[in-house]
């Protein structure tokens, strides 16, 4: 057997195609599939999914249990049950150890229960505190567990709490008092998620494998870019109401997009992130073109709508072409560097 074509990496897609083309018998296909994807892979996958789903459903059950039985329970019972839940989760997490996924999920569950405890506390004693204080308190209280967990999902929960705190602080304090502009909130949220993304990438380069999940990169990158895009689009649409901070936000969006492109094109080489950055740039560019087009003509002129439809197709097609070309170039570069 000396065919060089057979040195290609085997994948399920290839053997399925060979089977479909009649080159590989059904029995051989099943045997080859079992070699590529042994049963242990599926068991591992099922164990993980069931662990996450089970934990999420139990936590949802606890929250609904309190909501349904609220009137029938005394305050000591309410606090006692939640605190018992937290203590059990922590002890079980300690016994399982932080290297096992179950131990990490138990710590995540304890962190969620802290939020439930704070919400129940606020309801029982009617503290009158603003909602953002609950989320900040929650984030502060679980910080220790987040640090020791080495668990991306718990870090994400913590970041969601900080983002929610910032948004609620703006809507409950900053906006009513006219002390914080919307653009500053967006800059803050973008900075928070951007900093987390940078730390994730640096941590991964330093060998922290628990940060390697690609979804974490996607969530943080999209959160940063969306936070910067909203005020940038607003600036384009409502150009008359321009203030310095709007221009600053648009400038930061440009810097973040260019920086992200350079980083994921040349340094970290990730096509999905590149695609997201270019999609985002597409939206901003089309908003700008649309604004110019509809400003220079009339909204009742049907030709403008047709022209804009063609421009959308042109811009999106151009970006897709660029992405395809970049993906091919990048695949070549990866092969070269592997040699």
């Amino acid at each position, binding site marked *: 057997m000396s065919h060089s074509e057979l040195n290609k990496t*085997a994948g399920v897609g290839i053997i399925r195609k060979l089977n479909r083309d009649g*080159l590989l018998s059904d029995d051989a296909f099943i045997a080859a599939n079992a070699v590529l994807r042994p049963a242990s892979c599926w068991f591992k996958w099922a164990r993980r999914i069931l662990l996450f789903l089970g934990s999420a459903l139990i936590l949802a059950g606890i929250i609904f249990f309190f909501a349904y039985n609220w009137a029938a329970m005394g305050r000591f019972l309410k606090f006692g049950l939640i605190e018992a839940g937290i203590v059990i989760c922590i002890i079980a997490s300690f016994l399982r150890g932080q290297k096992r996924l179950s131990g990490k999920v138990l710590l995540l569950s304890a962190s969620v229960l802290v939020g439930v405890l704070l919400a129940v506390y606020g309801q029982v004693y009617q503290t009158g505190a603003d909602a953002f204080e609950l989320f900040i308190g929650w984030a502060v209280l679980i910080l220790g567990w987040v640090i020791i967990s080495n668990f991306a999902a718990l870090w994400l929960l913590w970041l969601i709490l900080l983002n929610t705190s910032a948004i609620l602080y703006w809507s409950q304090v900053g906006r009513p008092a006219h002390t914080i502009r919307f653009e500053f909130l967006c800059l803050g949220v973008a900075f928070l998620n951007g900093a987390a993304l940078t730390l994730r990438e640096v941590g991964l380069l330093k060998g922290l494998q628990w940060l390697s999940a690609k979804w974490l990169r996607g969530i943080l990158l999209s959160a940063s870019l969306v936070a910067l895009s909203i005020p940038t689009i607003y600036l384009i649409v409502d150009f008359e109401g321009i203030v310095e901070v709007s221009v600053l936000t648009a400038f930061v969006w440009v810097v973040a997009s260019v920086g992200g492109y350079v980083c994921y094109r040349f340094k970290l080489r990730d096509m999905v992130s590149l695609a997201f950055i270019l999609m985002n740039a597409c939206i901003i560019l089309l908003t700008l073109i649309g604004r110019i087009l509809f400003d220079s003509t009339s909204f009742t002129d049907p030709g403008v709508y047709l022209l804009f439809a063609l421009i959308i197709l042109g811009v999106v097609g151009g970006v897709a072409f660029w992405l395809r070309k970049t993906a091919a170039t990048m695949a070549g570069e990866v092969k070269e560097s592997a040699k």
Partner: protein
Amino acid sequence: MNQSSLTIKQLLEHPKVRDLVSPEDIERIAASLAGPEQPSKDPMYIRILYGLGAWFAALFLILFIGISQMFESGAASIFIGITFLVAAIVITRVSKAVFLSQLSLALAFAGNILILVGVIAEIEKPDVLIILITHAVVCAVVYPLYVSSIYRFLAPIALVVLATVWIVDDEVFFLMHFLIAAEMILAGVLLLHRKLPSLLIPLAYSAAVMLPATLLFLNLM
């Protein structure tokens, strides 16, 4: 050895596989792999980009037709819709250029919507069932002719969403059991089919999404 990094040669020589593959099979496999490489499918992010671009372009195409007052009557709208669909089918068969693929997808979306709008305008008392039947007919005709995995994925989902809307709107709730059963059977048959024709692959993915789509829409309504 990591099983995911096996070469085809190593896989065919694996103790569990080698007795099931003859030397002639290996020769034929090698000859097949040595042939001209099939153009690889676009990755998911490019297909999402295409889909989004086409939807927005379709929206502006419909606005263009609406403002041009081309569909003053339902029949005119249906005619333009059919023309768009035919144009979309012809374009995909003539060219594979990115811009034209995008244009054809936008025309297909716009054409499908225009036919539904036209049918609604033509009937005195618009009913979701009529829209559902119209979309089913359009989908059945266009699906085999129009070579686009995005259209083939989205059109059946739209059909299921319309069916859910109709069941809730007309309060024929017992049909929900049949809809869910039909979705599960379709997904089961397509996903377990070992030699699924490429024509039906988007429908298989669509079938996998139908059940969550039904449950989601049921809760939203």
